[in-house]
């Protein structure tokens, strides 16, 4: 009894993301799948869940679930056996409330009212959310949504659960709770595969550990697991040359409160962000880093006071504000305005705040270092995730606003690109005196170029010289 993939190849636009991969996922096991972002984890999981080729990926090879080819099963048959939990918890519910969502899903299996009520109650109890049945999703935190999503697939009766980075928007306590829950479920007989880019908390619970490397799976022997338990080392930053008093202040926080849905994510007394230099902001998953960046970028409401150049952020005229402040969005496609790579580059070269620095020669040099040459008239929306990220960052550094917020600028980049990108960020910052605040979990790479470190725990941030890497 297992899900098996034999010689599985998955491609988008004829570009193989997974190549000739083999995998057996048995019941009563908990498997961790690790790989950097962009390595193809989501692609693999969607294929295993039977969503391709229907939703775009080209699949060859064989996927079987308990000896039945998955391609022959209809969605309502498949759902009883295998289920996928999606990376972004917001996008996976069709209905506004928990109860309606369960009714929708169980009606798909043609269950009658009594069975629906009974399965809903059973599944919610299993994840400890019995009281949540009449809650609407907009009031749930990321962790609660993922628990509901888990309960939903349990109610559907799936034996194999595939979870795609389920903890990306989940705070650390919920992450631990969910990991324990997954372990219990696997012991009860479910076959579970979790993908994650962060191994924290898994190694005492899992039975198998794979790395997704070069389009295929590598099984990591148990003896080597401890090597992967990163973020255990600390690096101490060199104290800034001048004392902080002598530094200019870009932003001043005073009793700043930020809500994310119903949850208070930041409650900050007094804090300043210094002008010029690179500040790294770290904190556990789901703590609210992206919400803070959005607030700084005038895209999220706040209470209390937040000033930029001594003027309240929401009192700035948007056009003036965004003339000085830029945000590198987490999703690259949110940054793009035009269609082709050349159109995008031409646009920023024309509008750059530092046109004297960004000559044609310098641009060409960076394009070639970033391996972005020759993409000229390709649509930016057809680039790979890594190419999109590099282009996005280049565009914003060519614009070179006075202040730049970077939300996970290294996501989806291979090692060689990371080095180039770090060099690009540092070069621009030093040459143009930019103020950069960067959120990233890839601290080991970034620690060499940052000047300061802000640590964000619970609901407040504070400067720290030690960085976990």
């Amino acid at each position: 009894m297992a899900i098996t993939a034999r010689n599985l190849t998955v491609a988008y636009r004829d570009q193989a993301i997974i190549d000739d991969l083999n995998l057996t996922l048995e019941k009563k096991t908990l498997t961790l799948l690790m790989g950097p972002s962009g390595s193809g984890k989501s692609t693999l999981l969607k294929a295993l869940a039977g969503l391709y080729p229907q939703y775009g990926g080209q699949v060859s090879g064989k996927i079987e679930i308990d000896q039945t080819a998955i391609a022959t099963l209809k969605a309502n048959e498949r759902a009883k056996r295998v289920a996928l939990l999606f990376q972004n918890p917001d996008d996976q519910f069709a209905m506004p409330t928990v109860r309606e969502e369960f009714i929708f899903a169980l009606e798909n299996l043609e269950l009658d009212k009594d069975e629906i009520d009974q399965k809903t109650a059973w599944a919610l109890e299993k994840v400890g959310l019995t009281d949540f049945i009449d809650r609407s999703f907009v009031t749930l935190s990321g962790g609660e949504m993922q628990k509901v999503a888990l309960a939903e697939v349990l109610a559907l009766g799936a034996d194999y659960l595939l979870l795609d980075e389920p903890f990306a928007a989940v705070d650390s306590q919920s992450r631990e709770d969910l990991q324990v829950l997954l372990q219990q479920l696997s012991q009860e007989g479910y076959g579970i595969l979790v993908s994650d880019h962060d191994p924290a908390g898994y190694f005492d619970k899992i039975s198998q550990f794979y790395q997704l490397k070069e389009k295929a799976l590598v099984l990591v022997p148990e003896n080597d697991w401890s090597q992967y338990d990163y973020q255990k080392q600390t690096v101490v930053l060199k104290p800034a040359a001048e004392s902080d008093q002598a530094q200019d202040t870009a932003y001043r926080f005073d009793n700043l409160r930020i809500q994310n849905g119903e949850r208070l994510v930041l409650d900050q007394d007094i804090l300043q962000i210094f002008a010029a230099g690179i500040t790294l902001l770290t904190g556990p998953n789901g703590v609210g880093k992206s919400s803070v960046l959005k607030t700084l970028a005038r895209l999220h409401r706040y209470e209390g006071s937040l000033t930029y150049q001594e003027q309240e952020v929401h009192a700035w005229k948007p056009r003036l504000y965004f003339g000085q402040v830029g945000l590198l969005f987490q999703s690259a496609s949110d940054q793009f305005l035009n269609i082709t790579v050349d159109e995008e580059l031409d646009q920023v070269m024309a509008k750059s705040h530092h046109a004297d620095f960004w000559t044609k020669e310098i641009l060409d040099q960076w394009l070639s270092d970033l391996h972005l040459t020759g993409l000229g008239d390709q649509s930016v929306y057809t680039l790979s995730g890594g190419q999109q990220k590099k282009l996005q960052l280049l565009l914003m550094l060519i614009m070179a606003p006075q202040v730049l917020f970077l939300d996970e600028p290294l996501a989806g980049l291979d090692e060689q690109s990371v080095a180039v990108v770090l060099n690009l960020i540092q070069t621009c910052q030093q040459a143009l005196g930019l103020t950069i605040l960067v959120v990233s979990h890839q601290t080991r790479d970034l620690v060499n170029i940052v000047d300061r470190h802000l640590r964000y725990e619970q609901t407040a941030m504070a400067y720290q010289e030690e960085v976990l890497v």
Partner: protein
Amino acid sequence: MKQKWTLQNVILLALIGVIFSVIYWIMDPVYQIVNSGLAVIGLQAFTNEITLGVWMMAGPLASYILKKIGAGFIGEMLGAAGEMFLGGSYGVGTLLSGFIQGIGSELGFALTGYKNWFAGLWLSTLTGTVVSFGWDLFKSGYIHYKLGLLVALFIVRYLSIFFFSGVLVHLIAKLLDRSKLLSHE
């Protein structure tokens, strides 16, 4: 062109409806502002004609992007229904207008036998104008207007629909086409 509606097609169609229900709802106060502006110079009979093109964008855009029978009509109805639920200025009247406008736009694509979508788009600006104008003859009492005014109203309405539901829709769809975001479906 696949004729079957997939779940993803329907969700995209409905999202187009949602986008435009918000735009239509925002247009309600814009309409009143334009109207008071034109009233000063005695031309507020033209308010409806000038702005109508915006209110008719959802249908042609949905047809032109999804290339399916009924997309235009349903897209326009969804935009109108959403506007009503948001609390638009015309309550259920919006549903009725959406119904008429949806039929008007859909007709253009139908006349090509759903074969030539580019020609269908231009035809739909014409059929949309004719059908919605015919409706207003009775509903808004245009029938009482003098012929000269009627002709002027018709021309202005056509220009508005031509620009917003024709040219602008075409430009939007062209961007989408060049982006290749939908090319592999």
